[in-house]
């Protein structure tokens, strides 16, 4: 195994582990939302939302999970990452405004961190896959231009 191949394998792991972790949290959560599981309904009720929001969130989570796993349509994947970011940030803000303990606020933020690591690795993969095979991949450096 050359260094280039080793790096490619490592970056695949760095993509799939966070992606798997947050999808493992979000896709079952989407199903749970759609089935209106009691624990999800209770949390939403405490935050002051109506129950039908579960339907909206459940559908959105499942569609976002499909878009990220499918992965061929890059714009769709970009939108899915945006959606998961807004979702987790909104959840954290809601816990904040409802004066919940810090641990509860932290949970969506941990998921957000996984989403962002996965997004970062996906962007880096996009950059390096645009290069010819077996060339040394450059480091992905975010700049104003990459926005």
């Amino acid at each position, binding site marked *: 195994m050359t260094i280039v191949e080793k790096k490619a394998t490592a970056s695949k792991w760095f993509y799939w582990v966070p992606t798997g972790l947050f999808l493992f949290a979000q896709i079952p959560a989407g199903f749970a939302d759609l089935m209106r599981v009691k624990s999800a309904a209770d949390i939403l009720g405490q*935050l*002051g*939302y*109506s129950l*039908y*929001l579960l*339907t*909206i969130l459940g559908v*959105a989570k499942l569609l976002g999970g499909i878009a990220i796993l499918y992965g061929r349509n*890059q*714009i769709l994947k*970009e*939108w899915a990452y*945006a*959606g998961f*970011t*807004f979702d987790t940030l*909104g959840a954290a*803000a*809601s816990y904040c*405004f*409802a004066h919940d303990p810090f641990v509860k606020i932290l949970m969506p933020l941990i998921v957000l961190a996984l989403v962002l690591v996965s997004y970062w690795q996906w962007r880096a993969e996009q950059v390096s896959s645009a290069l010819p095979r077996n060339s040394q991949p450059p480091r992905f450096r975010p700049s104003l*231009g*990459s*926005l």
Partner: protein
Amino acid sequence: MHLGCWAHNFAYRHCGSCRCYVYEERRGWSNTKPPGDALPNRLLAVDSSCRIELAAGALWDLLRIEYVRVALTHLGYPLYVLIILGVWRIPGALTLLAPRLPRLKEWAYAGAFFDYTGAMASHLLKGNHGSQWIGPAIFSGFTLLSWGLRPASRKLPNAARSSEGNLGISWAVSVLTVAAMLVVAFFTLPKGAPPQ
């Protein structure tokens, strides 16, 4: 110095309506738009209305006027959602107006689309009349139109390298436009509760 077309925020060289001569490295002097790089004129109204809605909506939310309070309580949302939505909408509108930043624009379009479709779905699931969900439905359509019709210089992946007009002036115009939208929205705030 050419500032770009007024209708496109002084950022683009051609919009098809300005017909002024501009210089481009590849094409030399010309007064016609390059193919596929501008919005047709009559779609500008659609394009700008969704940004105006974002800025006006942000002000309504952040001021917590009675109109949105009643509407939100009726839908069964807690009032702090107004802060979350209002805080997101101003940078969203600014991003859509500003030059370049194609990836950030993608996120802003996504946010606006989720916002409008979420509002529409809330009205539908609550079993409200058509007159109440038709507004968000129209605006989500406008967002998709504006997204699908954006000129090539604002699309991923080539936008980062595209040379647009004067960046500083175009940014200043964007910020001033958002400020003007906020001022206009402030003086035209709806009074009282929405019709049920």
